[in-house]
C-alpha cells in the first residue's frame, strides 16, 4: 500500500512539474514591463548626481494574467542607491498587472544602464522554481553635481589699474566698458558714443571706441585614468574631479567666460572646444558624464570571487542562458573533487554566456575555460558593464602603473594647449597628483612653459577619501583592539606629508595648488580666471 502511495506521490509530482514548465514557458512571453522615472518614460530622462529619483516598474500581461507565484525583481545598477520603497514584488495571486516603486539616490556621474527585470516563477506549492528574465536595456546619462559659486563676478567692468610689466592684454575694439581710443565719427556710429566735449574742442565729431570684453578661456585638463576610477560610486577620485570641474564650468559660464575640456585617460585624449553660455555649460556636463562612463579598465587579476561574481550577474540577467540544458558543460574526468568540479562547471557556463555576449568564436570561448587572463578580462568587462564599482574583485588594487603615462598625457595636452592659446588663458589641471612622484617632472616642465607665456596654471589635486587624523590623545589607540585605526592614521599622515611635498614642488613653478576636497577650490580657480582677464595680480582670493 505504501508503495502505491509513494508511487502516486511521484506521479503527482511529475505531473506538477510538466504543468509548471509548460505554463512558465507560455506565460513568460506574455509579460511586458514598463519603467518610469519621476512619472516620465525612463528612456527620456537625464539624471543628476545626488538627486533622489523615483523609479516605478509596471508589469502587465498582454493576454490572460500574470501567473502566481512570481517574484519580480528590478535589480538596478549600483550607481543608484535604494533609499526608500521596494525594488521587488511578489505576485501571490494571478493578476492582470502589478507595480512597485522605489526611491533611489544617484551616486555618481556617468551612464546608468537599466537592465531588464528578473522573474522567479514558482508553482503554487512552491516545489519548483524557474528563473527567467525579460530583456530590456535603457541607458540614461547622469550629469555631475555642481556648486553655484555665489561671488562669480560678471566681466562687465574690470578694475582700473595698469597690468604688471610683461603681462599683455588682448586689446581690440568692441562693446566693453573700458575706453580703447577716440576716432572720427563715421556715419552709422551710434550717437550715444559721440564724445561731445572733445568734438567741441576739435571742431569735428569724435566717437569713443570701447575695448572689447574678451572672455577668458579656461581649459580644464582632466585626469580620467583607471587609478582615479577605483572605489565605490560617490567615493572615487573622479567623482571629486567631476564635481569641481562642473562647478568651475558653472562659475565661469555665469561670469561670461569660455570653458574648454581636455580629458586624458592615459590612452586617448578627448577635447571639447571652449564654449560659453547655457548650451556650452550643458555640453561640458555631458562630456564630463560621457568621460566618466568610458571604459578604462585597470588590469584584472583572475580570482575565484571574480568568476563567481560574473556568474552571479549572468544568473540574474540571463538565467535562461545559464540553464544546464541549454549551456552544456563538456564531459571531462577532471577535476574529480565535487567542489572543484562545480567551480569548473560554473566557469564553463560563464564562458558560454560571455562568448555569446561578446560575439567570440567557439575557439576563443573554449580558451576562456583554461586561460585565466582572458577569462579575468572578459569577466571584468561584464561586471563593469553591469554597473559594478571598480573595487575588488573587479579590479586589482596595487600601486597604479598608469600614473606616469597619464601625467605625460596631461603634460603633452597642456603643452599643446599653450601652443594654441591666443591670449592669457587659465589652465586647470585636475588630477590625482599625490601618487605621481616620478611622473611629476613632465607636468612641472609644461606648467613652467605655460607660466612663462603669461598664462595661469592651477593644479587641483583629488583628495583621498580619508577621515581627519585624530587628536594627540587618540593617537595611541590600543594596538590589539584597533589595528585598523592605526593603519588609517598612518595612511592619513603619509598622505599629509606627500601633499605638503607636492605643494612645495608645484608652487616653485608659480602655479596655484589646491585640493578638490577644499571648499575654496572653485573660488580659487575663478579668481585666477579673473586675474587672467584683468591682467593684474589680485590677492583677493587666497592661494
Amino acid at each position, binding site marked *: *500500500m*505504501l508503495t502505491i*502511495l509513494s508511487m*502516486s506521490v511521484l506521479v503527482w509530482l511529475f505531473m506538477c512539474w510538466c504543468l509548471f514548465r509548460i505554463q512558465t514557458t507560455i506565460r513568460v512571453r506574455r509579460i511586458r514591463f514598463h519603467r518610469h522615472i519621476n512619472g516620465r518614460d525612463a528612456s527620456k530622462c537625464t539624471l543628476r548626481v545626488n538627486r533622489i529619483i523615483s523609479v516605478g516598474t509596471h508589469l502587465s500581461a498582454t493576454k490572460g494574467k500574470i501567473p502566481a507565484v512570481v517574484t519580480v525583481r528590478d535589480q538596478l545598477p549600483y550607481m543608484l542607491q535604494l533609499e526608500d520603497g521596494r525594488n521587488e514584488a511578489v505576485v501571490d495571486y494571478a493578476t492582470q498587472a502589478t507595480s512597485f516603486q522605489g526611491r533611489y539616490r544617484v551616486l555618481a556621474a556617468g551612464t546608468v544602464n537599466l537592465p531588464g527585470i528578473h522573474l522567479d516563477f514558482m508553482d503554487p*506549492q512552491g516545489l519548483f522554481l524557474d528563473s527567467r528574465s525579460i530583456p530590456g536595456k535603457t541607458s540614461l546619462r547622469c550629469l555631475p553635481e555642481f556648486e553655484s559659486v555665489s561671488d562669480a563676478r560678471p566681466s562687465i567692468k574690470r578694475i582700473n589699474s595698469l597690468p604688471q610689466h610683461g603681462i599683455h592684454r588682448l586689446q581690440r575694439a568692441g562693446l566693453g566698458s573700458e575706453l580703447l581710443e577716440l576716432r572720427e565719427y563715421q556715419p552709422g556710429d551710434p550717437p550715444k558714443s559721440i564724445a561731445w566735449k572733445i568734438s567741441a574742442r576739435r571742431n569735428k565729431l569724435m566717437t569713443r571706441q570701447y575695448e572689447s570684453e574678451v572672455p577668458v578661456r579656461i581649459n580644464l585638463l582632466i585626469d580620467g585614468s583607471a587609478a582615479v576610477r577605483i572605489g565605490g560610486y560617490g567615493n572615487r577620485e573622479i567623482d571629486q574631479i567631476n564635481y569641481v570641474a562642473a562647478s568651475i564650468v558653472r562659475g565661469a559660464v555665469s561670469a561670461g567666460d569660455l570653458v574648454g575640456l581636455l580629458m586624458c585617460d592615459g590612452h586617448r585624449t578627448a577635447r571639447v572646444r571652449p564654449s560659453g553660455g547655457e548650451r556650452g555649460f550643458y555640453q561640458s556636463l555631458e562630456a564630463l558624464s560621457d568621460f566618466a562612463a568610458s571604459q578604462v579598465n585597470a588590469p584584472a587579476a583572475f580570482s575565484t570571487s571574480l568568476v563567481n561574481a560574473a556568474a552571479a550577474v549572468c544568473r540574474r540577467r540571463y538565467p535562461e542562458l545559464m540553464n544546464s540544458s*541549454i549551456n552544456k558543460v563538456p564531459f*571531462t574526468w577532471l577535476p574529480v573533487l565535487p567542489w572543484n568540479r562545480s567551480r569548473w562547471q560554473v566557469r564553463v557556463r560563464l564562458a558560454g554566456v560571455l562568448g555569446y555576449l561578446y560575439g567570440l568564436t567557439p575557439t576563443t*570561448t573554449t580558451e576562456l575555460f583554461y586561460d585565466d587572463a582572458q577569462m579575468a578580462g572578459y569577466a571584468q568587462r561584464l561586471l563593469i558593464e553591469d554597473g559594478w564599482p571598480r573595487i575588488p574583485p573587479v579590479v586589482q588594487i596595487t600601486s597604479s602603473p598608469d600614473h606616469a603615462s597619464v601625467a605625460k598625457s596631461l603634460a603633452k595636452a597642456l603643452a599643446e594647449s599653450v601652443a594654441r592659446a591666443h591670449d592669457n588663458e587659465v589652465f586647470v589641471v585636475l588630477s590625482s597628483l599625490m601618487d605621481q612622484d616620478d611622473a611629476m617632472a613632465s607636468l612641472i616642465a609644461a606648467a613652467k612653459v605655460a607660466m612663462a607665456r603669461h598664462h595661469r596654471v592651477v593644479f587641483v589635486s583629488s583628495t583621498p577619501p580619508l577621515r581627519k587624523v585624530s587628536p594627540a590623545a587618540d593617537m595611541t589607540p590600543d594596538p590589539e583592539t584597533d589595528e585598523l585605526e592605526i593603519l588609517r592614521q598612518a595612511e592619513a599622515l603619509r598622505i599629509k606629508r606627500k601633499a605638503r611635498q607636492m605643494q612645495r614642488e608645484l608652487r616653485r613653478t608659480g602655479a596655484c595648488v589646491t585640493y578638490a576636497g577644499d571648499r575654496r577650490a572653485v573660488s580659487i580657480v575663478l579668481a585666477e580666471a579673473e586675474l587672467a582677464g584683468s591682467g593684474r595680480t589680485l590677492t583677493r582670493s587666497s592661494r
Partner: protein
Amino acid sequence: MMPNSSKGEASESAARGLFSRWFGATNRRDQCPSPNRLTLTVLAFYWSAIAVVVFQLSASLFVTEPAFALPLNAIVVALVVFTIWRWPGALILLGLQAYLLFFESAQRVDASAGNLAWIVGLALLLIVLVCRVRMLMERFEIRGIQGLYQAYQHSTESEIVARNKDLQLPNTLTNRTIQENGASDWEGKELAKGAQMILLSICGVGFAVAIALLGWWMVPLGPRAVTIRELRLTPNAVRAIQLAFLFAVPYLVVRVFIGEWLWRRISPAEAQVYLRSQFTSWIGPDTRFRVRTRARVLRKLESKKKRERSAQVDRSAQEN
C-alpha cells in the same frame, strides 16, 4: 513581561539569540508585512487541517499494527513533512520508496481501491497544505516556532492597540474596520486559492491513483518472474521492478515530448549558446592542449628574461 533591569534584558536577549539560532527565528519582521488576525486565523486553519490529515493518514496506514503504530506513525509523518518542508528531502522519500519495495509485507496488497484512493488523497492533501503553510510563513517572514509564536503575540498586541484607538475615534468607521476591509480582499483570495488547490489536488489524486492502480494490477504477480525470483526478491519487489520498467516508457515519451516542445520554443540567444556549447565540447581537448602549451612557453620565456636581467645586473655590479 519584560524585565526592567539591564542584566535581565541582557540575559533575555542572549536567550532570544540562542533560541533564534536553534529555531531559525528572524529579527527582520519590520521589513516585511506583518500578518493580521484574519491571516493568522487562516494559518491556524491550515495547521488544524494538517493535524487532522496526519491523524487520518496515520490511522489508515497503521491501523492493523497497533504495536508499531505510534513510533512508525511518528517516523513516517516526520519523514513526509521533512521531505516537503525541505525539497532535498525528496531523496529520503525515494529511499523510503526503495525500502518499501523490498520489505513491505505481502498482506498489504489486498487493500481495496477505495481505501488506496483515500490514503493517497490524504497524503497529497498533506503535501498541498504543508506547502501552502510554508509559503504563507515565508511571505510574512515567520521563521520557526518562535516566529509563529511572535506573530500570534504581535497580532494580539496590535488588536489591543487598535481597540484603544477605536475608542478615541468619533466616527463609526473605525481603524479596525478599515484594516479588516483592506485585508478582506487578500484573505478571500487566499481562501479561494486554498480551495482551488485542494480541488486540483483531488483531481490530481484521482489521476495519479488511477495510473498507479492500473500499473499495479496490470503487472501479474505469478510464477513467471523466474529470473528475478532467483535473486530472492519478494513477489511485491518483483512486481514493483516490472512496474518501474513499465512506467519508464510513458515517462520517457512525456519527457521527450516536453523537451522537443521546449526546444522549439527557445529564443535565438538560447539556441546560439546551445550550439556554442556543443562546438566547445568538440574542440575542448585540443584547445586545452594549445593554451597550456602556450602558457608553458610564455612561462619559460619570462624566466629566461628574468635570468638574463639578473645576469646583466650582476655583470654591471662586477664591472663597477
